[in-house]
């Protein structure tokens, strides 16, 4: 193969700084999006388990809508379409008013997309709890809200730690799509280094290693947490 290796390039400025800056943006997008996904997903997931047709329908509609459109299309909808169909001032705010519009667009888009996935996990987590617990809680005089707040959700979160972890890693990986609207995160940075230096192997390898390391670290953390919080007598759901 006709290729001049130069691993040193990764330690040279500005490329070294670029990789870390890109990594920082990847983490920022992923963590903020995950916060949205977790809160939104919990609400939607709970809606889908409530024994009333209307909230169920809303929950189902949300999940079906966000799961059946490719993430990249959703990103383009948020970025190109939403600012044009809302009132003019609001559109201008989305395009220029808020600082770093591209970044926040990506965060919101990923948050809503993964919210649908989290909702499915929360729902299956609640579904995995034997109905006796709900009935017992109701029999003790708890209101429905209290049943969710003190019984169903805490138990459910503990058994869905593994699938939630893979969802978090999903957000982390999918944050790379933000490069299509101009957020210069890790993958975009590695490609930029490729464009500036033509040392593509080294640049992509650096990104690959960073992504793998994060996955490895998060998985290890997950196993520790999972062992600590495991409920005796209940099997936690498999990671996807």
């Amino acid at each position: 193969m006709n290729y001049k290796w130069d691993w040193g390039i990764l330690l040279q400025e500005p490329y070294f700084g670029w990789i870390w800056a890109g990594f920082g943006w990847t983490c920022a997008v992923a963590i903020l999006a995950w916060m949205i996904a977790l809160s939104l997903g919990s609400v939607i997931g709970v809606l889908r388990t409530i024994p009333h047709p209307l909230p169920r329908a809303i929950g189902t509609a949300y999940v079906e809508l966000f799961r059946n459109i490719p993430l990249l299309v959703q990103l383009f909808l948020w970025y190109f379409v939403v600012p044009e169909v809302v009132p003019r001032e609001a559109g201008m705010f989305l395009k220029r008013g808020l600082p770093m519009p591209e970044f926040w667009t990506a965060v919101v888009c990923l948050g809503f997309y993964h919210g649908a996935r989290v909702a499915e996990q929360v729902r299956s987590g609640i579904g995995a709890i034997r109905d006796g617990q709900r009935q017992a809680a109701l029999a003790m005089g708890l209101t429905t809200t209290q049943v969710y707040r003190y019984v169903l959700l805490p138990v459910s979160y503990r058994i869905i730690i593994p699938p939630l972890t893979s969802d978090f890693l999903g957000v982390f990986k999918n944050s790379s799509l933000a490069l299509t609207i101009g957020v210069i995160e890790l993958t975009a940075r590695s490609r930029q280094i490729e464009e500036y230096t033509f040392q593509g192997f080294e640049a992509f390898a650096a990104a690959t290693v960073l992504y793998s390391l994060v996955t490895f670290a998060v998985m290890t953390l997950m196993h520790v947490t999972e062992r600590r919080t495991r409920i005796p007598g209940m099997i936690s759901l498999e990671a996807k």
Partner: protein
Amino acid sequence: MIRTFRTAFAAAAAFVLAGALPALAQESPTLKKIKAAGEISIGHREASVPFAFMDQAGKPQGYSVDLCLKIVDEVKKELNLPNLKVKFVAINAQTRIPLIANGTIDIECGSTTNNLTRAKQGDFLPVTFITGSKLLVKKGSGIKSLADMNGKRASISSGTTNEKALLAEIEKRKIKVETVMVKDHPQAMLNLESGRVDAYASDDVLLYGMISTAKDPSQWEVVGEFFSYDPYGLMIPRNDSDYRLLATRVIADLMRSGEMEKIYNKWFNPGPTNIKMPISADLKKAFSIQALPY
């Protein structure tokens, strides 16, 4: 296993072709590959008006495409393959150089600046256009040059010389410009039209090309002084002197015979998109200097 396969394949190909090829093609890896594949791959930009862009039917056309097709004609003659298939591969600013370097395309027809960094990845044919970076803005925006960009937002296309030039200027002038990376010129135009950014930094001629295809050309203007020097050339794979000689000969012939200027006028003066850019004195000079004799 791949290597054995490759060696075997190369040996077989060499055996089959040894008798059939003229001397030149025997030396040139690119011509050998074209002959073996029965097709030549032309990488073309999709929206670099008027160098390489799509007509309504989705076929690539333009100044650079015409020049590439002239070279293809010569390749056909050289290989004695009048029915050589031409495969058009769509490329963009980010993919063009890697695709030349990894051999996916045999020639790049777009609007690529010939510079010494890129020359490490591919060889350039003689200079066929001379331009430089400027800014495209909406008329009445108040932006007259780079100095007015402080606190504004600008799009740049990733993988271009303009990207580096603008970032360097921002650094040098200590102005605050928020940059938004875009994939290609049309996305930049969309960003401008929707008011997301105030300016787009690209080569002056491409900015005029964008204006000429805009819905309302009277809305737009190109402003400021040049902040980079961008001589264009067609790009071909590196380390292939024979192929390079063949292509250079075609370009030199066109320049010597005056046909180059005719092709230029076809696309620029006024050109199908009405870009109206008569040939510059510099370019005219460049044509006559590069019209090498036999």
